[in-house]
Structures are given as C-alpha cells and as structure tokens.
C-alpha cells in the first residue's frame, strides 16, 4: 500500500510542479517577507535583527500562508472530480483512500514548502542585511544565536501540526464539491465563519487555527526578552491540530468512498 501511495504522490507532485498556479503561494509569501522590510527595516547597526524574523514569519505564514494552503488544497480533489480525471486515476490499482493519502501528502508538501521558503527568506534577509548575533539587554546576551535557532527550528516543526489540520480540512471540503472555485470559496468561507464565531461560542480551544501562532510564541517572546514557556500551549497545539487532521482525513475517506464518481 505504501508503495502505491508513494507512486501516486510522486505523480501528483510532478503534476503540481507543472502547474503555474502552484507557484502563486510561494511567490506571494516571499513577497510578504520582502514587504516586511518596509515596516521593519534591517540594518547592520549591531542590534539583533531577530525582530524582523519574528515579524515576517507569522505575517507571511499565518495570514498569507494559511490562505494559500487552503486554496491550493481545496482544489486537489475537486479538480479531479470536475474534470472526471479521478475515474482515470482510480482505474490503476489504487484505492480511494490511497488516492486521498497521496493528496494529503501533496498538501503537506506544499505547506512544508511554504514554511521552509518563509524561514529561508526571513533568515536569509536578516543574515544578508542585518545582524543575527543573539538577543541582548544592557550589554548582556540573554539568548544566544544557537538558542534562537533552536527556538525557530522547533517552531517550524510544530507549525506543521496546524498546517496538517488545515490541509486535511481543505481536502475534506474538496471531496464535498465538484469544482475548484466553489471548493476554495467554501473552505475559506467556512473557515472565516468559524473564526468569527469560535470565541463567542467558546469553542476556540478546539479549532486548529487558534494555534497557528503558537509555534512562534517562544521565538517572538525571546525577541521581546519575555521568558515564554513551550508548554502547555504547544501540547494543546499539537493535540488539537493532529486530532482535527485525523478527523478530517477520515471524513474525507468516508465521503469519497460513498461518492458516485460516474455522475
């Protein structure tokens, strides 16, 4: 089964790489990082420029990145359904759940690509134009470069959890619709609706998007010289995000299995 999923994944990946729309998201997040320079300039003035990294990363990922991930993943299954190509794909010895697993992996690859791209461009900019030699106060280094790198690296890893939930959610919406446009509109609209009502309903703790910023708390806190702990927020982030990712993945399999693909 793993072999079949891997084969399907590589096929889907090649297909995505050939599509121009795949590159819209990466270009936009890089532009967002570059745009952050306008608000948060970086200079070689001896002062640490981790502030730019802490500013640009959540800006690019948690606003634009999540938006683009939802749009990209909403079209993963819906486009196959609308063109009828899913019937051709499933002619091969490939189960529907394996097909979905390949799509989920592709969505995760896209999200990982965005995270890596943002990290590389933010750190690259800070390195090239500014200083990244620890965070100090009153002449004393409170957080070394290595500590800041570790905090950022751990944040990158943790950020994949809410992105996994977002990918899974968008793929689930994608299985419900027949064309890419309505799928993207539905996934974004529903997400924004839940964003608007989660606090009044008191359900924010169970929504993955509440934790999109959690991975960067420690890094941002250190930049502000605020001693910020990983836990328990990281635990909630991981738990809720993975639970939602699994739930939407199973729901997607359920919906696709019951779907008549010949209509």
């Amino acid at each position, binding site marked *: 089964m793993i072999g079949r999923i891997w084969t399907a994944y590589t096929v889907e990946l090649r297909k995505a790489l050939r599509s121009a729309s795949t590159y819209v998201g990466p270009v936009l997040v890089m532009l967002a990082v570059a745009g952050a320079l306008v*608000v*948060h300039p970086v200079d070689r003035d001896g002062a640490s420029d981790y*502030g730019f990294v*802490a*500013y640009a990363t*959540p*800006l690019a990922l*948690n*606003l634009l990145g999540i938006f683009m991930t939802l749009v990209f993943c909403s079209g993963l299954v819906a486009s196959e359904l609308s063109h009828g190509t899913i019937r051709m794909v499933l002619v091969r010895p490939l189960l529907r759940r394996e097909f979905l697993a390949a799509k989920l992996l592709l969505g995760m690859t896209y999200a990982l690509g965005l995270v890596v791209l943002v990290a590389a461009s933010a750190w690259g900019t800070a390195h090239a134009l500014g200083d990244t030699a620890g965070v100090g*106060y*009153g002449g004393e280094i409170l957080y070394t470069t290595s500590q800041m790198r570790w905090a950022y690296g751990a944040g990158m890893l943790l950020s994949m959890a809410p992105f996994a939930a977002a990918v899974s959610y968008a793929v689930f919406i994608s299985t419900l619709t027949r064309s890419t446009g309505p799928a993207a509109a539905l996934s974004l609209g529903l997400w924004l609706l839940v*964003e*608007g*009502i*989660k*606090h*009044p309903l*008191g359900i*924010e703790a169970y929504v993955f*998007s*509440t934790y*999109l*910023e*959690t991975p*960067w*708390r420690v890094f*941002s806190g250190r*930049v*502000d*010289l*605020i*001693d910020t702990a990983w836990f328990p927020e990281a635990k909630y982030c991981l738990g809720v995000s993975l639970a939602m990712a699994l739930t939407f993945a199973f729901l997607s399999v359920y919906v696709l299995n019951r779907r008549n693909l010949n209509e």
Partner: protein
Amino acid sequence: MTATALALALTGVSFIAHDIPGLSVDSVDPFTGQNSGRFRNADLDGDGHPDLLLADSAYRSVDGWPDAAAAIEMPELRAACDVWQGLLYCRVRAGLDVMEWGEGHWRPVLTHDIVWARWRPPDDSGGLWFERFLHDMDADGVPEIVIPAATGLSVYVRDETVYREAAVLDVLPPMALCTDGPQRLWPADARSIRFPSRAMHCRLWLDGRHVTVITDEEGRGGEVWHVRRFAVDPRCGFEMTELESMQIALPPGFEPCALNGDGMVDFAGGDWSFSDRMPVPSPVFETQATTDGGRSIQVRRSRSFTPKCSFIDFDGDGDADMITESMGVFDGGVRETANRMLTSRDVAHAIEVRFQDARGRFSEKADVCVRVTISLDKPLWRQTDFGNRYLAGELVDISGDFNGDGYRDLAVQNSPNRISLFEYAGRGFPRQPAALLAFDDDAEVLVADVNADGLSDVALVPRDGGSRAPSGKTKVYFAQGE
C-alpha cells in the same frame, strides 16, 4: 445593591458583608502591596477589638466587625489626626487635643496650645484628616510628634502634661524657589507683586531611631537619587549621626522602596511600551528592581499594561516578591489578537510570582503561575468601562491574605458583578475559587484589612457612570478565615 448582595462561601474562607458608609479605600501601593487607606484602626472602647475610624465617624467593633449601628461622631475639629493606643491625637491650628472615647462621648485627655512648625489642611477637607505624625522614637511607649517643615524635621516630645518642641532635625533638603505661572497685568486692579513660592520635595522614612531622606534630580538619561540615612539618639537631645550618604544613578521610572530587610534603600519601577514584533503592536511591561544600590538592575518583561501591584511579600518571608501579569488577548499573532479584540468577551490572564532569594535576586522563571479567565461585558474593542478597567490592571489583586496563612491570595473580578477568590495552596492556586462574591451592580473591588484582624477584607465601591460613586455606599466583605 445592599439588599441583594450575596456572599457565597464555597469552601475555606467565608465572608460577612457590612455597609460601611463613608469608607474610602485606596488602591494598594504598587511596590509594597500595602493599602494605606483613608482610615485608621484603634481600640477606642477598650473591648480588645480594633474599631474603625473614618474622617467623619467611627464604627465601634461589635463581635469583631465594625457596626454601622454603633457608629459615633468624630470630634468636630479642623485638625490633622493620628491614633495611638486608643487615643486620638488632633493637631489643630493652635494646639493639640488628645482625646479618648468613654461614656458615650469624646473626653479630653490632654489639651494645650502649641505653635506647630507646619500646619496645612488639605484643600478637600473641612474637618478631620489623617496624617502619620506619631512615632515612638525613644521606644518609651509615649509617641513623639514628628512634623516635616521648612526648617527641618520638628520633633515634639511629651514633658509631663504638655508636648514641646525638643529638636529640629536638619535632614531635609533646602527649599527652592518655584516657577510661578504668568501674572496678570490687566485689568490694572488685578496687578500685584506676589512673593515667590518655595517648595521642597523629598521622601522621608522614619523607622524607629533611623531617618532616611531620599531626594532626586534629573540626570543624564535618567535620575540621580541621593540617599542620606541618619541615626537619632533621643536620650542625647536627638543628636544625629549620619550613617550613610550615597548617590545612585538610575534610568527613569524607578521609585525608592524597601524590597527586603537588609536596611538598604531599594529601587523598583516599571514601564510599558509597545512591541513592534507584530503588525498589531502588543504592550510589553518591564518590571525593574535593584536591591544592591543600583549596581545591578533586574528586569522581567511580560505582555501587559501596568499591573495593579508589582512587588509584594507573597510568601510572608519578609522579602518582597515580584509579580508580573500577562494579558492573553495579545497572545497569538495579529489574526488571533484582532479576532479576540473583535469577538471575544472572555480574556485569559496569567499572574506569575518570582520569589526573592536571600541575595536579593528574583527568580528567572516564575515560581508560581496562575491563569484565570475574565469575562468582560463586551469585546475589548467596544471600550466599555469594565474593559478599560481590565486594561488598566484594576481587576486582579494579589495583595490580600484572606485566610491568614501568611501567603497572599488572589482576588479576581472576573465579571462586572462577581469576584472569585483563590487561596494559595502550597505550590499554586487551585482552578476552583475558594469563594465567590456576587453583587448586583458594577463596583470597584479593593482589598484591605479594614477591621485590623490580620485578614484581608474586600471593599466594594460602587461605580457610577465610569467613575467611583461617592464612598457613602461602600460595602465591605469581612473575611472570617477558615
């Protein structure tokens, strides 16, 4: 509000509610956690229970609680007053009246004329006002009267039946000319030549036989504090010996205080600014302290505006501990922050305590951390009175000890008409409150030991249109302990 106010004790500590008309309670001092209050406690009737003295009336204690039904009028004097062992000392313009309460009225114990070095009533007082002028410097059980004046610190001692000026301690800084505002030249009859005003500004600490005088002046990039400490010998005509004199240069925002019992003057302060790490600026509060005469400054930062109290002896070991608070509303990036501000009425709030060790160092990591949820009446962007009070740090108070165990407990006004009290339980605060106090109308919550029984009480001052209502409606929930 009085009729329907409900004190509900769930576990542990319980409260008895009493109306105390006229009681005015101040907020705690941010560096000591003490509530000076505009009241005094003294056992007027000798029943062993401290009575409550206000500027216009006194409430005698009945069964341990100040009873409005047993209220007595204060003497009709325009005088500064202080209390000492059940006696009321009143400094009137031309003399001293010492009175005691007995047989249903105030009886003079000592009355004589005296010329005070300084006697100046506050602008808003038409009768009595409280001052702290009684200090037992020679530890003989009879208080001396100490008054700061232009010439120095005037000390009046009691000789048999009268108080007389025994010494003027030359410890205060000299008076300096003030810059008066522009004088009117027109109309012609309004023209006058005024004597220029003179003023002197310093902090004065009296601790037994020790006098500490602290002055400050603007320095480069901050303030320069001058600390002079004297020992006074009352047996030798109040002869003074200068123990130490030092200058400490500190950044702006520091205030002198006593954070531990090492005898040195400590400095603590705090200031907030906005962090530019997010597209939406988030507040960062910097709590600062130096316990070694300015050689090293300890700084702890948190996402918050100004909290109610930054230093308090949390664990009762005699050393002040550092309190920091974090507002959860700014936690979670620009999208989540905007979402919370626009749609959420519940805000998460964290209070952290960092203990001070024997070397005067505050812990790097929080020793005690408690998280509470405060339910605002409307989302923060609506800028209601209650929401603004939350942002001003008025809803959380960790200065009270309601059960008398020596550890501070937490009082949170987590909705406009409810207070939750959390008792410290060894290693932290339980999630469930020890007591809930519910009331009908919006009120400001202040913590103070009103009846001087060693247990903190909760005073509710009704609010009217976004400001404090007249103190005539103050209600106090007296803690009964475990």
